């Protein structure tokens, strides 16, 4: 159950601070347990950042691309398994048109996983991002969350190419 505690885990406000510092103004998301902390912090601390729920990750990429075309810096929040649902959109829309969308992905199938069905896709995430040419960084400690998110966003929007920030289970389930 997605029950958010009164006080979010330390990494969550720092990820949000990094997004806000990079002037991300609209979040498109397909929800997940760890991501609910980010959505809670955004709603409470950053009401100027819009949030739009998508039905599927591929759709989220399309909406985020449109936001960028309209002059708004977007980020997509999703579980890592969703990368498999949107790989063609990342390649033929974001990469081909050089549209920067920053992904914040809560990891499934990485160390700490309990569900065997999540493991094969979890193993594929980094090779798939490499194959798509999408740079990524993993946040392994809360202290580095803001600077890592900020740096990935700044480079993505400056060089006009998507980028991904991974939230491993050892961070989000600690």
């Amino acid at each position: 159950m997605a029950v958010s505690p009164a006080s979010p885990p330390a990494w969550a406000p720092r990820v949000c601070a990094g997004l806000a510092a990079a002037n991300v103004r609209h979040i498109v998301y397909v929800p997940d347990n760890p991501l609910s902390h980010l959505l809670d912090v955004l709603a409470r601390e950053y009401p100027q950042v819009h949030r739009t729920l998508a039905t599927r990750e591929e759709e989220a990429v399309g909406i985020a691309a449109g936001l960028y075309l309209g002059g708004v810096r977007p980020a997509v929040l999703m579980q890592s398994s969703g990368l498999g649902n949107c790989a063609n959109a990342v390649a033929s829309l974001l990469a081909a048109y050089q549209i920067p969308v920053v992904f914040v992905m809560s990891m499934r199938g990485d160390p700490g996983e309990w569900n065997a069905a999540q493991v094969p896709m979890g193993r594929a995430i980094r090779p798939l991002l490499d194959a798509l040419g999408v740079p990524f960084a993993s946040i392994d400690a809360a202290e580095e969350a803001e600077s890592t998110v900020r740096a990935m966003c700044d480079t993505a929007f400056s060089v006009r190419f998507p980028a991904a920030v991974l939230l491993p289970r050892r961070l989000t389930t600690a």
Partner: protein
Amino acid sequence: MTRREATGRLVARLRDHAVVASLGHPAYDLFLAGDRPANFYTWGSMGLTSSIALGIALARPDCPVVALDGDGSLLMNLGSLATIGACSPANLLVVVWDNEQYGTTGGQPTATSLGADLAAAARAMGLDATAVTTAEQFDRALDRADESRRATVIVAKVEESIPGGRPPLDCVFIKQRFMAAIGACEPGTRGAGA
């Protein structure tokens, strides 16, 4: 009514609209009916036309936005209707060219040829949706869309017609030209002064 004819009727009414066209024949016909900088031609990401248009409409509430989708494309991303229904920006019009086939890939039949009703699906998602089959009905539906206070869907039954031209292939050119046309120019693309 052919898709080419219907596209021409729509383009003749455009002013400062942003238009997003689905890859293949819908984009080719938009280009042939009148290339303009505020046309965003997709060359891939089949299914995402209405989603891209939604993003533009949310970013730019001042800018009227039209999506030119196909039946096969929208069937790939029906969830988009739920999201557009929930957001319902008044400045968004989704036109679906329903020729009951995958026209660009050789004319294989789609589910709408077997009875799938995209206008009914859109209405079920809370959208203001109309199905039209004639040019006069299409014009009237466009008139109503201009006055609507929520997102509108027009499903236009059209005959397939083979387009005799193609839009520019340079995706980055399409993007930069589009963003400049709607006043969302990317910082740095034109250099900085001394």
